[in-house]
């Protein structure tokens, strides 16, 4: 069964729980589990080794704080170490006093440079800047065209000279072009290249020397494995990298490459790519990422995202309902409609603290077709049935199935899903209520004591 890094660490600390105090032995067991979890998350082998050594040194030297559960103590140490490595604070893009600001995108093939260039353009445009997208990839078939289309979609300026011109010249000429068109930011989309390709690495060095970019961003995929350190190191040795952008963060990769990349390049992660659309670019928050790694869930991003799309009044009503546990099928339907706006439920669920554990890796995903069926089923119920689902016995189920044009099995499944969601709500509310108490290290969500301690 697929387990996230979060779940792995949770189970590692579960074995630590119940033990009255920290001993070298139980730290060792916990650390072994953390090591394994980090490796399964694709953090580089050597980075893990160093990390574990550091955490161990920090943990063993510490006195056991009587009032804090040993597991929480280790969690805090691990959390702090992760945050420390990941940079501690959100790093914004540099802006040159003397426009244009030049941003250069580099990386291996297939990491999402062109798409990310478009996303950055949208991001900058929202901030009132006027970006110029420059097609400096003259090798990949139709890469120039792709960037042109992306620029159109983003509604920003585009500059390309086809594939017959030296990329260095294109980048140099782009500066004059930006001035002419009144653009204050230049985004150079360079070709994907292998770090072992000397000729191509020489070319990218030449571009950097010729235009002296203010930012050189290394674009890397969150699914990257152990080799992240090798490619990142080569790019770092060839170019004065200033930041990393981690793409495909909307998948289920555990993203350990983030730790490897930061460790090797010494650069902060400036953005993360979270979807295929051009607005799917988020700032990187080390605390959130560390929190996510440690099983506290990325609750802050979740709330922020939810606020953008969810009807606030409905949300408040829903919260009250959930608290009182009088959560009925009408709420279920309207909540599902709200959540649907946020994208895949599975992705969201994973962001809620402890949720991935409670779900036991089970996904509660459904597509638009399912959604239509669910709506039909619930709409075929009487008001009373919606409010008191308990009364829906076999006879009513058949009627509802016929009325909604679905099958009995679908009706049963919906009622089961509803029941599951009600239980989850109850559990969540219970856990949420215990914040800060000794209910275990993950019980408190944002209320966890360690969150305020660093």
């Amino acid at each position, binding site marked *: 069964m697929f387990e996230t890094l979060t779940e792995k660490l949770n189970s590692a600390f579960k074995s630590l729980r119940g033990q009255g105090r920290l001993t070298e032995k139980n730290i060792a067991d916990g650390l072994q589990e953390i090591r394994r979890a980090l490796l399964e998350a694709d953090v580089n082998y050597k980075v893990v080794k160093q990390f574990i050594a550091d955490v161990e040194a920090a943990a063993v030297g510490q006195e056991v704080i009587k009032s804090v559960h040993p597991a929480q103590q280790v969690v805090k140490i691990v959390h702090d170490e992760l945050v420390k490595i990941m940079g501690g604070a959100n790093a914004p893009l540099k802006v040159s006093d003397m426009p244009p600001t030049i941003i250069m995108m580099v990386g291996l093939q297939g990491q999402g440079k062109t798409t990310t260039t478009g996303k950055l353009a949208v991001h900058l445009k929202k901030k009132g800047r006027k970006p110029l997208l420059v097609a400096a990839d003259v090798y990949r078939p139709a890469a120039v065209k792709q960037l042109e289309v992306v620029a159109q979609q983003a509604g920003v300026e585009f500059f390309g000279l086809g594939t017959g011109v030296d990329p260095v010249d294109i980048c140099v000429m782009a500066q004059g072009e930006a001035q002419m068109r009144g653009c204050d930011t230049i985004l150079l989309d360079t070709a994907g290249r292998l770090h072992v390709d000397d000729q191509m690495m020489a070319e990218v060095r030449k571009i950097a020397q010729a235009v002296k970019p203010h930012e050189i961003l290394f674009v890397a995929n969150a*699914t990257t494995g*152990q080799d992240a350190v090798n490619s990142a190191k080569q790019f770092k040795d060839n170019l004065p990298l200033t930041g990393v952008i981690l793409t495909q963060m909307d998948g289920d*990769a555990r993203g350990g490459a983030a730790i490897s990349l930061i460790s090797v390049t010494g650069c902060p992660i400036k953005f993360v790519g979270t979807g295929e659309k051009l607005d799917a670019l988020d700032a990187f928050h080390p605390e959130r990422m560390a929190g996510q790694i440690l099983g506290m869930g990325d609750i802050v991003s979740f709330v922020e995202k939810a606020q953008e799309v969810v009807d606030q009044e409905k949300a408040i009503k829903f919260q009250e309902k959930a608290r009182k546990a009088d959560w009925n099928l009408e709420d279920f339907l309207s909540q599902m409609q709200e959540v649907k706006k946020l994208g895949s439920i599975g992705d969201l669920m994973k962001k809620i603290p402890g949720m991935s554990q409670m779900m036991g890796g089970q996904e509660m995903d459904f597509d638009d077709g399912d959604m239509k069926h669910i709506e039909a089923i619930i709409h075929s119920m009487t008001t009373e049935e919606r409010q008191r689902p308990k009364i829906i016995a076999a006879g009513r189920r058949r009627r509802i199935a016929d009325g909604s044009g679905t099958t009995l099995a679908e009706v049963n499944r919906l009622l089961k899903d509803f029941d599951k969601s009600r239980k989850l709500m109850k559990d969540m509310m219970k856990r949420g209520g215990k914040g800060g108490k000794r209910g275990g290290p993950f019980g408190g969500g944002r209320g966890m004591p360690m969150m305020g301690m660093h």
Partner: protein
Amino acid sequence: MTEKTGFFGRLRERLGKTRTGLVDGVRAVLGTRPKLDAETIEDLEALLIQADVGVQTAAEILERLRETAREKRLASSDDIVAALKALLLEILEPGDHTLSWTADPPPHVTLVTGVNGSGKTTTIGKLASKLKAEGKNVIIGAADTFRAAASDQLEVWCERAGVPIVKLHAGADPAAVAHDAVQAGLTRKADCVIIDTAGRLHTKINLMEELKKLYRVVAKLQPGAPHEILLVLDATTGQNGLQQARKFTETMHVTGIVLTKLDGTAKGGIVIAIQKELGIPIKYIGVGEGIDDLQPFSPRDFIDALFS
């Protein structure tokens, strides 16, 4: 902040201490210590994990190596190396690593899938050229109607290979493109139809459903089709590769893997876990951007490269 530089300083030292890339080979590990002791096992584990084999799979392989070494009383480093390679071969060899490219009735239809950026379009360009050179009539279907200029990219490859392409406008229904491509294959009596699909993360339910629809359309048009469903996997992918393979094959039965970008320093060891867990054989490896840089997969060569 001083402590932070401390971490990087110590890490650099650690990275520098070992030879660049992977350890120079099991031989080097065992050269000094021909016994299979705990330290050697740890070194071998490091080797496998750094090749992206995965911590679980590595542990299982090494456990079996320990048993073999005990049973056969292996003492020399050569014997231990040979035993480890044999164990890996046992995992990688089963299954059909070739592609027939023939169907009765023709055309032989192949769907090419994978996550974004894995190298689907490039792989299809290389396949088209390869088949054309073998004298086959090939038609390419550009069913990636989502990514900007994806069909233009494929078109360039098709021109290079000299094979016809079937495409619709951007944003068109991918299943419609697949339909037209297979239909064209039937009408023009082509030998092979290869369909490019948009990159999609295996976690996007809707996109995976779209893929199922495409599959159904093809299957309806041509009984027995698609004959092959290739999953294109980037060799730099870590442990998520297993999840990718699992989800894609749950969506539609993946018949083989094309492992791309093996010309870098990544070893692509995740395919060992994939074949072990899911039994999906590797069919081709991509070793460069040239039109001829697609090679049939050889388990032996792959394992040798793992330790080079």
